[in-house]
């Protein structure tokens, strides 16, 4: 038998001016289990709160309904005010102001107030006493991806004193930023600002760096993830390797390198780029002659440090972490898909990233801008923005950074080739960052770059030249430019393996394959799945400052999480009984992947992940799932009461 008290608030005249509050109290005292009912001018005032406290003690109340304003106003106030006397979940608010006295009049309003209050009495009758759910937190973080976003997130978390495992798929961290020449709008040398951070990350006592490694499995949930990582065999002992380069000289296998998009050769034993971190060689087992069964052994024979080990096997590591930052980065859209631009097959039609390498002093041409087809200096370049972006045939979204880097490209080109001529085809210019518009203006005005508003209709080779045909939509004139080189500002797309990672992490991706944040405005760095955060271009195309900011934001979320020994969460979560028959309906539909199947195929949930929406409760065909304080029986009783 419950002992419920009902407290009807006048809210001055806000309620009492319309609703006959006395009558509400009189009607409610007649209800089963209601042992006390009263009214008061302002329940939320100190004397009002004290009145409730006194009556709870006096009448030994184990349930309270306060008929007042919306629960969004004072539910917390009243629950906190009585917390030491009564479990907060046994205190409910009947909203007779916003949803009654302010919108209705006279007798109707009083009758409705009675019904609403009665329905909350029914609810309280069925409410459980609940305590917040406490979740253990393993105060270590996993960061997937060692580009600038992953590095920044790792550094921030590590600086806060927590251990970080930074996993990078490639032999070196650095990511895309390492490939860039200079960065807009300040024209800092990309390597120069990135390298110190790479070294910091590698040397940080709290960061465990795992390069040439991939995450192959993720189990568990927020605070308690179990991660399996595969360390691919590098065939080099990183600790012994001094990066002297003798092995490289000895190696007889020459293949195109990845870092420069094949525009420079490398050996089968190589270092991805001079500033690589870790500064150690790696053997590409695909092209090496020395890995079993046939041994070449040239490199090992010259390695004084004895760092080469052909028998190295993949290593599988298991780590326990409390939070995961996903910073997997981006690829460029496949230029072969751009039919209208000659499928990008021509050597003199290159992508923006290839151009970055060309501009780089350490790149394949040592910074000389050339026509790849004949090696001669390129005098006339056409830059094509939105190559694959903002195009329903390809990618409908804006890749966000192309306007800026194209302006940078044009400017750097003019610096490299003083008598060069540059044309930029654009749809419109999006320069919204700090000092971006000024940068564009400078490029357009001072550098005398020809901006042509329009998209090229056709790009094709004619003899020695690449012809770009299009329309200048501002002048309404067709344009035909015979260029030496065409640079396509390719659309940014998520990394190829993003789907697999999303599956491992059980996080959603959007229609374009980018990771989907929990809320586009208010929770832009969090995954819906608790404990997983996003940073960088894996979530959406963005530039370096935005990537760094998002990485720090993700890190701060992780740090905030780690600042508690236990996580607390709302205890209204689905409860599973023992009558599950394994139909899997709940498992299929849970929006939070909170439901798992045991070895007998029966469903259970992880309270730490459950958000309490009740979608599974309504779907369970055998009534095996209950949502405390919003249970079927309670809701049905409430329905009956309001229809009396």
């Amino acid at each position, binding site marked *: 038998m419950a002992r419920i008290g009902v407290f009807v608030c006048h809210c001055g005249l806000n309620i009492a001016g319309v609703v006959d509050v006395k009558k509400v109290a009189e009607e409610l005292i007649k209800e089963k289990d209601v042992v006390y009912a009263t009214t008061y001018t302002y329940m939320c005032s100190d004397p009002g709160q004290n009145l409730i406290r006194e009556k709870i003690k006096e009448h030994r109340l184990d349930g309270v309904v306060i008929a007042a304003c*919306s*629960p*969004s106003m004072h539910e917390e106030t009243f629950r906190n005010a009585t917390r030491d006397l009564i479990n907060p979940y046994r205190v409910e608010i009947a*909203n007779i*102001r*916003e*949803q*009654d006295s*302010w*919108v*209705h*009049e006279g007798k*109707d*309003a009083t*009758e*409705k107030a009675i*019904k*609403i209050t009665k*329905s909350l009495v029914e609810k309280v009758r069925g409410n459980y006493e609940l305590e917040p759910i406490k979740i253990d937190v393993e105060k270590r973080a996993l960061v997937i991806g060692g580009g600038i976003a992953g590095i920044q997130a790792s550094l921030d978390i590590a600086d806060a004193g927590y251990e970080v495992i930074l996993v990078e798929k490639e032999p070196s961290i650095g990511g895309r930023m390492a490939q860039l020449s200079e960065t807009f709008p300040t024209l800092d040398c990309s390597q120069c600002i990135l390298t110190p951070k790479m070294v910091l990350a590698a040397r940080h006592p709290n960061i465990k760096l795992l390069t040439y490694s991939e995450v192959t499995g993720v189990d568990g949930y927020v605070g308690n993830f179990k991660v399996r990582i595969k360390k691919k065999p590098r065939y080099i002992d990183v600790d012994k390797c001094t990066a002297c380069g003798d092995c490289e000289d000895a190696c007889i296998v020459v293949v195109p390198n990845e870092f420069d998009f094949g525009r420079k050769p490398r050996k089968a034993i190589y270092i991805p780029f001079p500033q690589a971190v870790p500064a150690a060689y790696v053997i590409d087992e695909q092209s090496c002659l020395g890995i079993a069964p046939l041994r070449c052994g040239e490199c090992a024979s010259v390695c004084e440090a004895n760092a080469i080990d052909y028998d190295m096997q993949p290593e599988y590591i298991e780590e326990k972490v409390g939070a995961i930052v996903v910073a997997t980065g981006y690829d460029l859209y496949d230029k072969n898909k751009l039919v209208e631009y000659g499928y990008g097959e021509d050597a003199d039609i290159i992508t923006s990233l290839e151009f970055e390498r060309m501009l780089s002093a350490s790149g394949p041409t040592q910074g000389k801008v050339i026509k790849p087809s004949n090696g001669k200096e390129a005098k006339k370049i056409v830059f094509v923005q939105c190559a694959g972006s903002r195009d329903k045939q390809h990618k409908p979204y804006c890749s966000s950074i192309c306007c800026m880097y194209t302006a940078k490209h044009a400017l750097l080109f003019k610096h490299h080739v003083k008598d060069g001529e540059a044309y930029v085809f654009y749809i419109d210019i999006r320069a919204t960052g700090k000092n971006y518009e000024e940068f564009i203006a400078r490029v357009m005005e001072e550098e005398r770059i020809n901006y042509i508003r329009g998209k090229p209709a056709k790009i094709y080779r004619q003899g020695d030249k690449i012809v770009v045909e299009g329309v200048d939509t501002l002048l309404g004139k067709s344009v035909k430019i015979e260029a030496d080189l065409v640079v396509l500002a390719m659309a940014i797309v998520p990394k190829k393996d993003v789907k697999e990672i999303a599956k491992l992490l059980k996080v959603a991706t959007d229609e374009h394959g980018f990771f989907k944040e929990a809320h586009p405005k208010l929770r832009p760095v969090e995954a*819906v799945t608790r404990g997983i955060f996003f940073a960088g271009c894996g979530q959406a195309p963005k530039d370096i400052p935005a990537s760094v900011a998002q990485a720090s934001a993700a890190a701060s979320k992780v740090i905030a999480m780690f600042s508690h020994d236990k996580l607390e969460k709302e205890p*209204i979560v689905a409860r599973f009984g023992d009558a599950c028959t394994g139909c899997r309906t709940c498992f299929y*539909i849970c*929006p*939070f992947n909170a439901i798992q199947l045991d070895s007998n195929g029966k469903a259970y949930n992880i309270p730490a992940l459950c*958000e*309490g*929406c*009740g*979608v599974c*409760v*309504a*779907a369970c065909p055998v009534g095996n799932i209950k*949502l405390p304080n*919003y249970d*079927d029986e309670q*809701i*049905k009783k*409430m*329905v*009956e009461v*309001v*229809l009396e």
Partner: protein
Amino acid sequence: MSFEPKIVAFLCNWCAYAGADLAGVSRLKYPANIIPIRVLCSGRIDPEFILHAFRNGADGVFIGGCHPGDCHYIKGNYHARRRILLTKKLLKEMGINEKRLRLEWVSATEGRKFANVVSQFVEEIRQLGPLEAKK
């Protein structure tokens, strides 16, 4: 005496309930026939609740959820939409006018929309007359 419809409204906590609150804050009058029951998500609503309401004398059932894409629980409103679509089909076969069950997306900023759709709904049910599911 004129017919006063009895209507149960299941409102999701995050959008429709907040929208109804805003209607109150904005003092937008609407008929008192509709009695709200707050649930956390429209996806919590079991077709059984709807049938239960009709069996217990409701002349109409109103369900308010978040707009598509805005669900606080990501997909709950889609579950509501599907279930209600199927329930409407069932009601029709049972002989109950499907207009007696109404699903509306009401955001927390749509106080006016809440007041409007509820007023319309009450009027519509008034026109339909009492539902005598027990006869």
